[in-house]
């Protein structure tokens, strides 16, 4: 059974068509990335999938339950982390989690057990009795995540969960997403961070102007649009552009203390660089090759659409 299935969703706000005939299928247990430029309709689709908005046309099922015909049963199966950390500032972290647990009908004992476990996992154990309004953005986002996963949902929706977070908070959030997926939750993730989608998701879907323009695995999407690869190299002393005048190098760009070289044949470029450095007694301090990026595919897809 599909964890999430949306068929021919349509939503208009006055004259604006925010979502136009969108169909999405997410398999149970997968991490599904949902990408799109600002204003593409990502948040509207999340609101339609989670039952916050009613579509003008189309259906949404969560584990086979129609969310607009049986909203309460469907919502019991899912957790939602909205775009901004939507927790009650005038409650403590623990009180926010208690409220969430009560909403899902959890017993007092189970709530206590899960609250202790989540506060520990998300690094909030010592702040459990502190009012959330005094928390940093990252800490508020961790409380928001804890509220959404306290009942171990079958399906977890995350709308830009790492947006604006510091490195530590971002890592904690990513680890928690992975942990929830390992525990069996299906993850639906919208993000601006292409690298995040690339490393986390088994499948990604790109939306633009309310329509789905591409849907596949990150690797296949990358291959579909660009075959250019790059080599990043740095040396133990400054070098000039002349060093990269070689037929296998399409373009060379300085990139901080490194050079990024674009090529169709990284093998050939690597051999050239090692030979040339040896001849001119230059030390190579780092050498990294990278394939076509999802970011490039994303830009091309959204520009074409």
């Amino acid at each position, binding site marked *: 059974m599909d964890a999430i299935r949306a068929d021919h969703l349509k939503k208009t706000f006055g004259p604006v068509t925010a979502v136009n005939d969108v169909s999405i299928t997410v398999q149970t247990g997968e991490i599904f990335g949902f990408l799109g430029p600002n204003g593409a309709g990502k948040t509207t689709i999340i*609101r339609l999938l989670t039952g916050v908005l009613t579509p003008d046309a189309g259906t949404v099922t969560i584990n086979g339950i129609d969310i607009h015909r049986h909203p309460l049963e469907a919502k019991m199966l899912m957790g939602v982390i909205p775009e901004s950390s939507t927790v009650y500032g005038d*409650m403590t972290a623990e009180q926010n989690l208690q409220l969430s647990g009560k909403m899902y009908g959890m017993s007092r004992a189970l709530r206590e057990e899960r609250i202790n476990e989540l506060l520990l996992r998300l690094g909030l154990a010592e702040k459990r009795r502190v009012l959330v309004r005094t928390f940093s953005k990252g800490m508020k986002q961790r409380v928001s995540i804890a509220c959404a996963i306290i009942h171990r949902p079958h399906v977890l929706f995350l709308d830009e969960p790492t947006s604006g977070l510091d490195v530590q908070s971002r890592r904690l959030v990513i680890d928690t997403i992975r942990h929830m997926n390992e525990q069996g939750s299906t993850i639906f993730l919208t993000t601006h961070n292409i690298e995040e989608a690339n490393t986390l998701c088994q499948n990604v879907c790109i939306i633009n102007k309310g329509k789905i323009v591409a849907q596949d695995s990150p690797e296949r999407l990358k291959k579909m649009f660009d075959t250019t690869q790059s080599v990043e190299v740095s040396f133990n002393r400054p070098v000039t552009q002349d060093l990269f005048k070689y037929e296998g190098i399409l373009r060379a760009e300085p990139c901080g203390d490194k050079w990024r070289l674009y090529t169709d044949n990284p093998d050939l470029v690597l051999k050239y660089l090692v030979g040339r450095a040896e001849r001119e007694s230059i030390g190579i301090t780092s050498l990294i090759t990278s394939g076509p990026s999802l970011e490039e595919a994303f830009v091309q897809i959204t520009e074409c659409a």
Partner: protein
Amino acid sequence: MMEVPLFLRGIIVITGKNMRLYYTKPPVLMFGLLFPLFMFFAFFVGRHLDLVTFFPAFLAMMLFFTASSVAPLITPWEKREKTYERLLSYPVTQDSIIMGDVAAGAIFGIGISFLVWIGSTVFVPVSITNLGLFILAFILGTLSCAALGTLLASPASDSPPNVMIFSNLIRFPLIFISGIFVPLSQMEGLGLALAYCSPLTYMVDLFNAAMIGTSVFSPLVDCGILAGISAVFILAGRLIQKRNMIKGM
């Protein structure tokens, strides 16, 4: 089948959350507690009014202000803080949220007005001629006022001050046309016509029937109108909020 217990649980949890978060918010304390007290002192001090006769109307006014002051704050506050969207993603419906807001307002109204009534019995020789009617007046009165509060919170605004100003614009005139300071028997023309449109009129009349034993209308009429008004306010609030949701507000 599973939906009814989930719906009821949603109302209970949301009511508890509202009670914890909003009872101590300054606008609720200001317009729900202090304002009716100031109104009472403004009209009573130095005017040699018969406090025993005036007391049922004062109690109705207290109930009106307290019960209708909580709900107008909740929805705009939650929309501003973005917690409204999180609330909708929980296994609750918009109806559970509306009923939770009505319940929180009603409990606040009953609690505070009951304390005022108990406290007042020390200073004023108030009596109750019909206890059943008195309890009914409390329940129907607070329900209709809390429902009015929910209706006032329905416009698509995420600014609590704007909604509080709008709500006071509607609530304050009602106390002057509902037989509190001027008895219905002394009103005529447009004033009387307006009085018939105010839910507070029937609350005051019902409290008069329960505490003094005299009323303009039959208590049955008062009860029926208050119950009907409550239903109309809740349904109208529900309709407006659903329309807002469709528009994405």
